[in-house]
């Protein structure tokens, strides 16, 4: 099997091919599911290995990271790095592709838009241009559907954060909104021929499976409750963020006032001193009125993203519930 690797464009043009789809091997899918669901309620992460082929990122293998023990940060970090190196070395001996293409993590109720995610992305981005993060939600999957998604940061957002211009003005200038931080990528599952034979032989032809029974479960209230609770927390967060921005504006306004008052006094003093034939004092005093840093809009945007995710989840779950209820109704009318 020959695979071609993508070439990056020549330096002066800076043309980069962006990742458009993610292709998973069946065993990666099963490994992620097994690791994340066994480790519940703890959230876990792991590394993805594979190749990038043009616009498609192929993930061919993965391994889990040991759960981080927050005893001693420096020690834990080096232990984690050692683990990674050892694992990669061993896997190379058995001909597994050992290019890191990203990482996977389990999420609770779909909450993944955190600052840590962005920081990890930026760390990865310094070494590998094309990396992706796969988010798996074990609790949503227990309702019969597979809640797996692949995200990556948008190019424009990465550039913006490199320039450290994460303020409102920065975002407006770049023309980005809160929607433009993450890009969700479609996932495909691929299996080699041998594995397809295995799958066909292993599990008999599809009749109604347990997953179907889970999907047709009518009780949707607990799931909605949890979602709404998280949504309420998010709204609280956003109100807090808004308050921060309001405080900032107030402080700036107050600072302006103080500054103009001080300036008037200075000018008075200067006219006085000129009369006394002394040198005029400078009208600017930078040490007294330090410019207040504008709060980063990043948290704001992340929380908004989170709200959007929750709303989507709720909509999907509620519409499913309504469909099932109407099905039930027609069955009742027909049968009994």
């Amino acid at each position, binding site marked *: 099997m020959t695979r071609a690797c993508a070439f990056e464009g020549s330096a002066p043009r800076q043309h980069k091919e962006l990742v458009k789809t993610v292709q998973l*091997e*069946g*065993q990666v*899918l*099963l490994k992620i*599911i097994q690791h994340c*669901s066994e480790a519940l309620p703890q959230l876990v992460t792991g590394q993805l290995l594979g190749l990038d082929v043009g616009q498609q990122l192929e993930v*061919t293998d993965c391994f889990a990271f040991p759960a981080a023990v927050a005893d001693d940060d420096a020690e834990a970090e080096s232990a984690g790095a050692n683990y990674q190196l050892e694992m990669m070395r*061993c896997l190379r*001996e*058995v*001909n*597994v592709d050992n290019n890191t293409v990203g990482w996977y993590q389990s999420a609770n109720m779909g909450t993944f838009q955190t600052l840590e995610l962005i920081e990890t992305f930026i760390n990865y981005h310094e070494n590998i241009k094309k990396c992706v993060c796969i988010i798996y939600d074990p609790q949503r*999957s*227990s309702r*019969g*559907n597979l*809640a797996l998604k692949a995200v990556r940061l948008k190019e424009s957002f990465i550039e913006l954060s490199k320039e450290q211009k994460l303020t409102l003005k920065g975002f407006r200038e770049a023309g980005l909104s809160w929607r433009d931080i993450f890009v969700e990528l*479609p*996932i*495909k*599952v691929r*299996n*080699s021929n*041998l*594995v*397809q034979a295995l*799958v*066909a032989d292993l599990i008999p032809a599809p*009749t*109604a*499976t*347990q*997953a179907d029974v*889970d*999907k*047709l479960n009518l009780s*949707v209230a607990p799931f*909605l409750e949890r979602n*709404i609770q998280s*949504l309420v927390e998010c*709204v609280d967060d956003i109100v807090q963020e808004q308050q921060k*921005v*309001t405080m900032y504006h107030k402080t700036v306004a107050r600072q302006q006032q103080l500054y103009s008052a001080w300036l008037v006094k200075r000018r008075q003093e200067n006219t006085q001193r000129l009369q006394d034939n002394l040198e005029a004092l400078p009208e600017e005093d930078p040490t007294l009125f330090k410019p207040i840093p504008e709060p980063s*809009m990043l948290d*704001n945007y992340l929380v*908004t993203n989170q*709200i*959007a995710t*929750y*709303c989507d989840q709720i*909509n*999907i779950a*509620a*519409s*499913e*519930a309504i469909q099932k209820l109407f099905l039930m*109704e027609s069955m*009742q009318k027909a049968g*009994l």
Partner: protein
Amino acid sequence: MAATVLLPSGSNVSVKVHPVVLFSICDAYTRRKENQDRVIGTLLGVVADNVIEVKNCYVVPHNESSEQVMVDVVHHKTMFELHQKVAPHESIVGWFATGSDLYNSDALIQEFYSKESTHPVHMVVDTTLKDEKFSVQAYTSRVLALGDKVLATEFIEIPCDTIVGDIERVGAELMLTGFNDPSPDGRQKETANKSFSDETETLAASMARLADLVAKASDYVDGVMSGKVVGDPAVGRYLADTVALVPHLARPDFERIFNESVQDSMVVTYLSDLLRAHVGLAERLGTAALPIM
């Protein structure tokens, strides 16, 4: 699969394999080095009440010729330590090999693994698809000795099953029913790769499958009633229990429950849409960043 053989110690051991393990083995077989015929590796899992559950595995490089066999022990130990960090409850339960038959060198490898765990299980995964079947067999070994002299090692077959855990079901079945298109030439078809979040379609598909199942059951009952099929009393009782589980609600009760549930879902949808509209509006007006009052 052979019937359970009683081991000398009187224990009935059986093996249950997770599909992840089989997938990894197939993948490792595809990636093997050019001069090798087969791949061997270690199996990790848990043992509970004479049932050995194989949860994970990793490949160990080895070299074998007709005279001798060498296994990279360092690699094996390193990988085991790494895996222990992630899943400390899993232990070495045996080893696997691809291929269709047992080799002579298996005895030596089995001896090595019996130092690592008690009663190691040897699993043979037939990747050559002999007999057009993908077979997975498990063996345990018994040492044949005459007095003090060890003569040979005998491999006894034990029952081996594939179990699909609760959540893996979802992934594995998804691969069967929607995503995996086992076409004879193995080409990736674009149509087979639906998006993961195609919720309404999958719901319809589930209902269709359930309807199918119910139709099969009803056909079976009709067959028994008309005397064409010999009825199995256990199945009959099971079906009767299942049908009895369907609740019979009086009409007003059902309507009340139905309306309440629909209203709950509607109100939640309305709230979430309202919230989204609010955020969108705030963004456009720029009030998300400016003080609004």
